[in-house]
């Protein structure tokens, strides 16, 4: 698999996702935000975590309009895989690739902690390595992760099975306590209609080694690599 990791000024978790992809067996190329094209043969585009352009405006608002994003939109329109994590999810929402928006956390503070997610479905390129309904132990680190959308959008996401992950307890129960940022319907990540674009607030890339907290995040990257191989 060939992954292109987009680097915006202010991206800061690109190294973390590069490590996770490398461990899963992907080739990786970093792509600077001012580029107009993706490397030839790119299977997966990754928008990493961070504070693109400082995020002094709405998070992801400037990055969503960066030069490189035209190429990313074209890649997605061709059915190419796109993964946006944290700031990357915010950028996907701002770029029109995913619906809704990430508001400030309900407690108005940045929060960094371990977090269980319920895997809603395991028939997508991102989640084949997991079981449906499995609770995976990853982490969050964000100030604006409160997923918000209008009623119609929510209805469509739920009706078409486009919710990827929900905040849950260790047993996969979706509880109010587990939803610390206040997201609607406890949504932690969503897919595009064709299931080729995934945006998520939590960081699977930080849970890929036993020494550093655990390995529940690996499944996502392994799913992507095996999907690309099969394709």
């Amino acid at each position, binding site marked *: 698999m060939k992954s292109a990791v987009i680097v915006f*000024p202010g991206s800061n978790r690109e190294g973390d996702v590069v490590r996770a992809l490398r461990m899963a067996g992907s080739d990786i190329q970093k792509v600077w935000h001012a580029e107009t094209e993706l490397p030839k043969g790119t299977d997966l585009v990754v928008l990493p975590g961070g*504070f693109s352009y400082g995020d002094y405006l709405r998070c992801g608002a400037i990055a969503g309009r960066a030069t490189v994003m035209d190429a990313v939109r074209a890649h997605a329109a061709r059915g190419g895989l796109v993964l946006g994590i944290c700031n990357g999810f915010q950028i996907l929402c701002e770029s029109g690739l995913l619906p809704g928006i990430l508001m400030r956390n309900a407690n108005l503070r*940045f*929060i*960094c902690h371990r977090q269980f997610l319920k895997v809603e479905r395991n028939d997508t390129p991102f989640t084949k390595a997991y079981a449906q309904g499995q609770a995976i132990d990853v982490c969050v680190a964000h100030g604006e992760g409160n997923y918000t959308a209008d009623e119609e959008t929510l209805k469509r996401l739920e009706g078409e099975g486009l919710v990827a992950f929900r905040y849950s307890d260790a047993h996969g129960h979706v509880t109010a306590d587990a939803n610390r940022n206040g997201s609607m319907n406890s949504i932690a990540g969503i897919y595009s209609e064709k299931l080729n674009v995934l945006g998520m607030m939590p960081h699977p890339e930080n849970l890929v080694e036993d020494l550093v907290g655990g390995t529940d995040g690996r499944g996502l990257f392994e799913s992507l690599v095996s999907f690309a191989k099969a394709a």
Partner: protein
Amino acid sequence: MIRNDVAITPELVKEHGLKPDEYDRFVQLIGRTPTLTELGIVSAMWNEHCSYKSSRIHLRGLPTKAPWVIQGPGENAGVIDIGDGLACIFKMESHNHPSFIEPYQGAATGVGGILRDVFTMGARPIASLNFLRFGEPDHPKTPHLVSGVVAGIGGYGNSFGVPTVGGSVGFHPRYNGNILVNAMAVGLARTDEIFYAKATGVGNPIVYLGSKTGRDGIHGATMASAEFDDASEEKRPTVQVGDPFAEKLLLEACLELMKSGAVIAIQDMGAAGLTSSAVEMGAKGNLGIELDLDKVPCREEGMTAYEMMLSESQERMLMVLKPGMEQQAEAIFHKWGLDFAVIGKTTDTLRFVIKHEGEVKADLPIKELGDEAPVYDRPWVESPRQPVIAPGSVKAPMTEAEALLKLVGSPDQCSKRWVWEQYDYLILGNTVQTPGGDAAIVRVEDGPKGLALTTDVTPRYCEADPFEGGKQAVAEAWRNITAVGGLPLAITDNLNFASPERPESMGQFVGCIKGIGEACGALDFPVVSGNVSLYNETNGQGILPTPAIGGVGLLDDVTVNASVAFKRNEDAIILIGATQGWLGQSIYLRDICGREEGAPPPVDLVHEKRNGDFVRQLIRSGQVDTVHDCSDGGLALALAEMAMAGNIGAMITAYPENLPLHAFLFGEDQGRYVIAVDADVAADILYEAGAIGVPAVVLGVTGGSSLILPGEQAISVKELKAAHEAWLPDYMAGKA
């Protein structure tokens, strides 16, 4: 001749924080009346913050050398060799005064400043820590300050992209008018790619890099060198504003430029901005510096030479480049969207010459600005000795179980989760031990090595006995690193004290320094960088003497480490180290008996080293993976923290007959560790300990869901955790 438009009156001199005799010395040095710009420059260089004029003669006594020390105090940060061609570069610095006036920006720029100190030397920052002290919880300002400082530290570090992995938070009425915000940064560089501030070569270009210069922070360093009064909030305009995004770009651009081989010398513009950075580069290299301020990128129009020289705008750097490499360097900075301007050159005149709008605004001898700063041997008196409190003389006002439950939920001992969850402690994917343990552990690159990091001091000990308190601060940092399996290598010290002009507080400073020096020497734990913050007082009320110690240790194999959490049922619990039941200055005496008094526990450095070396060897040989040192709250609090972290209870059955139980459980005797091991190997460990004279005794066994102290009602771990986790969130929500 230099034109002099502004009359230099005694009032103007006083406003610049210079004493009349200091001003006279300056006039004598330059042989004429200074210009306003020159007065500004000397006030920036000769204030306490930049010149160390009250502390310098005492700091000379600190041990700063070891075979692994590459660079001791005097540069932007200290540098130690950690093997494999890698160096660890680290320093801690205070931002107390600005944080009290404007907590978010004060704390944020404190983090920004210390990160810059580290990457100025060529290191990529890999971890950040902090040491925070606030006033009493009931003080009306405290919640606002806690909220702003924590958000500011998080806001800067999270965006910059460095994990904030450790720290210390505490409360005391003596910080009501003067909080402490000390930030520590740790970075990695190759030992052959370290950059220094010393300029070389005549006629080389001096380059300004980073953000533009504005009017923020003018006289910041002078403010940091004065005591506070009720009007201090009027000083808000002197607090700088941080831009972590610009700093992140500056980091990437600087590291890229350093790789290109264009950099001869580099200095960040921190306290006293352009003045201090330019003077230091020239003075260290025995060179003159000539600057043309017309070339300085400014954010505001009409800035005067005086304002540009004293601005403390953030995220700026000064470099001396190899001639002919300007274009290459400029291209790198423009790629990152940062300003780049050649603003001057090195000269052979040893003069510091400032030109603006075709006129010379300052022409000063550069060496003397630094070297001839006043040095004071200020009068000091030794702190009065406190009586030793006999364990038997302290009556227990409640049961031990009640006391423990109260302590785990008290402001100083409660969980600081509310604080550290606002810091991204997981970014970079190398955090092996997260906040909440004895020391944080971060993996070095992809391993196998790791660094153990901690910040420590017990201010009430320092107040009661500066010498023993200074020793204890170093010993505790050493102990915390040891408790996770690290070999302690070096420290950075952040010496927060009250006014040096009062002999009592000067005496505290002198005593603490002696204690720090003694412990550093005995434990092979040299000081490689540091910062002195004096005048921490408001309306004549000084802070507790608080020499915060930032310690760094090395794990050769980061996968072999220990943590505080109980991990298995039926492990034997062993106490390492001797217990006399020392209650003087203990948390028990203060928070349970309402008495903050007595002599603090002495630190026997020989025992300290022997006990610690023993514990570290147990961890490194794979025999022990569960260790916690005994500090505030003594043995009982250590046990409770181990139970809470592991969700496993314990039954304590053994205790000495000759001590009151509360003195045994809550005494703060030093040099002690609690370990938990497979019951089968406990006897071996006791035997090994006995063979080298390390006191070791089995106290009980892990298991169950409650902590059971001898003869006491069981306390469920759930109940302990509820009390431990509740206080700070409730307090910040206005409920406690």
